Each structure stands twice: as structure tokens, then as C-alpha cells.
């Protein structure tokens, strides 16, 4: 039951926030993270068209043998991606809380331009608090 990382992808597919917790995740270069986020954005868009039942949101959970990726799509197209261990069940609530913190400390800060990389201190502090609550 561990949370490995959090990514926030804006509606254009650019990575605006990434945070890693713990040592399990292999460190990649910043460029690679940007590429991965863009790829994930594309995959998400493709999967939203693949549903046989008509309209659906894109992929929500991607599972592998060692970890799980939970994707939360907001009404405005922003994606919150949480990388967790396989046994984690609280990812949805954690993502909701992160979304609340985003709406509070990122959107209401006058020094943060929307869709740009997030550099607000209070958001970092709040995210660390939330993650500590869930690990």
C-alpha cells in the first residue's frame, strides 16, 4: 500500500506537476517525464474513443505486474495521475483530495498562470500532507 508518484497533466498534454515519494521509482530525466506525460495524454484520448458502448471517459486504471497507474480526468480536461502499488485501494479518494488542493492552492493563487508548470509552495505542502495521510 504505497504511493509512488503524482503527475498532473494539463489539457494540452503537457506535464505541469510531478512529485515522487519514496525511493522505489527509478529516476528518469525531466525530458523523459515530459515525453511520458504526452504519450499518456495521447493514449487517454485514444481509449476514450475505443469504448464499444458509446461515450466513455478515457482509461482510468493501467495495471502492470509491479505497479498501478490511476488516472483521474476532471471536467476541464486536466488529468491527475497517481502511481501506486498494486494493492492500493485508496487512490480515488487521494486523487479527489489532490484535486481539491489543486482547486484551492493552484487556481486561486494570482502568481500561477493556468496550464503552466506549477510552482506554488502551498500546493507542495498540501500534497505532501495528503500523501502522508494515505501511505
Amino acid at each position, binding site marked *: 500500500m504505497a504511493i509512488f508518484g503524482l503527475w498532473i497533466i494539463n489539457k494540452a498534454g503537457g506535464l505541469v506537476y510531478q512529485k515522487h515519494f519514496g525511493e522505489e521509482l527509478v529516476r528518469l530525466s525531466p525530458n523523459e517525464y515530459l515525453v511520458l506525460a504526452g504519450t499518456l495524454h495521447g493514449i487517454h484520448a485514444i481509449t476514450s474513443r475505443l469504448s464499444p458502448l458509446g461515450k466513455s471517459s478515457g482509461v482510468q486504471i493501467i495495471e502492470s505486474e509491479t505497479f498501478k497507474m490511476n488516472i483521474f480526468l476532471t471536467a476541464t480536461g486536466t488529468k491527475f495521475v497517481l502511481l501506486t502499488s498494486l494493492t492500493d485501494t485508496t487512490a480515488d479518494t487521494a486523487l479527489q483530495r489532490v484535486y481539491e488542493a489543486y482547486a*484551492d*492552492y493552484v*487556481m*486561486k*493563487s*494570482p*502568481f*500561477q498562470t493556468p496550464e503552466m508548470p506549477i*510552482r*506554488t*509552495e*502551498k*500546493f507542495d505542502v498540501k500534497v505532501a500532507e495528503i500523501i502522508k495521510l494515505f501511505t
Partner: protein
Amino acid sequence: MDITKMYSTGHASVVHPRLSVLSTSSLPSEHSSLSASSSSTRFSLPPTSGTGTPVPMPSSASVLTLSKTPLTATNVNRPNIYDRPLNKTKTSEVSLAAFAFLFSEMIQYTQKRVNGIADFERRLNTLGYRMGLKLLELYAWRTEGVSRAPKRETRFLTALSTIGNSMWKSFFGRAVDAIQKSVTVDDEFMLTENEPAITKFISISKDMGILSCSALTAGVVEAILDGLGFPARVTAHNVPTETYPNCTTILIKLDRSVLDREEALK
């Protein structure tokens, strides 16, 4: 009072520097001098009523707006906001989120028009000043209706404690956390808030330096003190502590005249 002098002389083009956001006067402490600035439209009605008329009071403003709009079937029944009873919204609360978005926009608007932190804080101070004038009047009007023997504070310390306690409760829902007097200088007083509500969601980046968005609150306090007869210079400063990283102090530097008067009244 400078403002009443302005109304009676009938010069609409001369606006009190504390009231005009466009004013080019550099020092915020020029309370006694009225600088002629070209920004009369910021505080007065648009010049359709002529340039020679004095700045109208709110009640006549409502008369002017009513006569300008044609009386159609739709707007003859629409209630004018100026006619609403003042006590109607006395206990209602404003959503902090809504105010935070508005305040964020005010700050971004100001940021585009300034070239320096001092100017930025001065502009926020001016915006707060304009709010504070009206807040003082509204507060005085409402307490008069509630208490049996409403009193006007003439001594500074009682005035300061009223501001920090009852007025703060009516604006923000809670009193200030500390009211202090400086030990080194005898004309400085401080109101300390551990978690100011209006700056709760604002993160200052490192390159903004020591900016404090509570300059708006400082402006409100400055206007209230001016209205009560205690001219001062009020500024806001961040004093982060271990437990309260957002702790903010409103520093009040009184005019010499106030101290002399307090001495005489002792």
C-alpha cells in the same frame, strides 16, 4: 476632513490621492495635501453631468442612474441595489472561494500596472482604503442600531481594540490574534493574524521577495483609522513562524499629531 473640503469646493478634478488608484503621487502619507490628478473618473461619475459639479454622494448617484435608463417594462420593477435595506446582509457570509478568485484577479490586474513591489503594495493599499471608508460607515451604522448606547472612540487604544476585535469579527468572522505596542518606538502598534483569510490560498514565489498581499487589509485599517480621526501609515508584513508560516502583522505608524493629542488628553 479633506474629503468634505473636496465636496464643498466643487472641484471634481481634484481627487484625494488615497482614493485614486491612478494617482501619480508617490508618498502614501500625504494626507493633508490634495494633489491634482487627472483621474477624476475613477471615483466620480462619468463626466456627462459636467465637469464643474461636485462629486455626488451615493444617494444622489442612484437618482442620476435611474433617470438615465429609460423606464421600460422590465427595469421599472427591478429593485435598485442602493434601495435595499442596509441590514439585510448583516449576518450573511461571502464564500471564501469566491472572494479568493476575485482577490486573485485584483492582484493580477494590479501586477500588470506596476513596476516594483513598493508600488504594488501601495496600490493594494489604495484599493483597501476605498473599501475601508465604506466599511467604517457601514459598521458604525449597524452597531448604532444594535446597541443601546453606541460610543465613538476618542482614545487610540480603545479604538484599536474595537478595530481588532468587533470590526475584525464583522469582516472576517474572527478577532485578530494579537494587538501589540512596539517597545522601541512609541508611535508603532501591531495587529497580528496567524492565518489571514484573504491570503490563505496565495503562494508568493521566491522572486517576488517580501511582498505581502495583506496590503489590502492594511489599506482597510488605514481608512478606518483616518475615519476615526487617527491618521496613520499602515503596512502589512509577513512574519512567518514555525507553526504559522503565513503569520502576518499589520503595522500601524501613527502621525505625530495623534500622539500629541493623546498626551494632552491623558
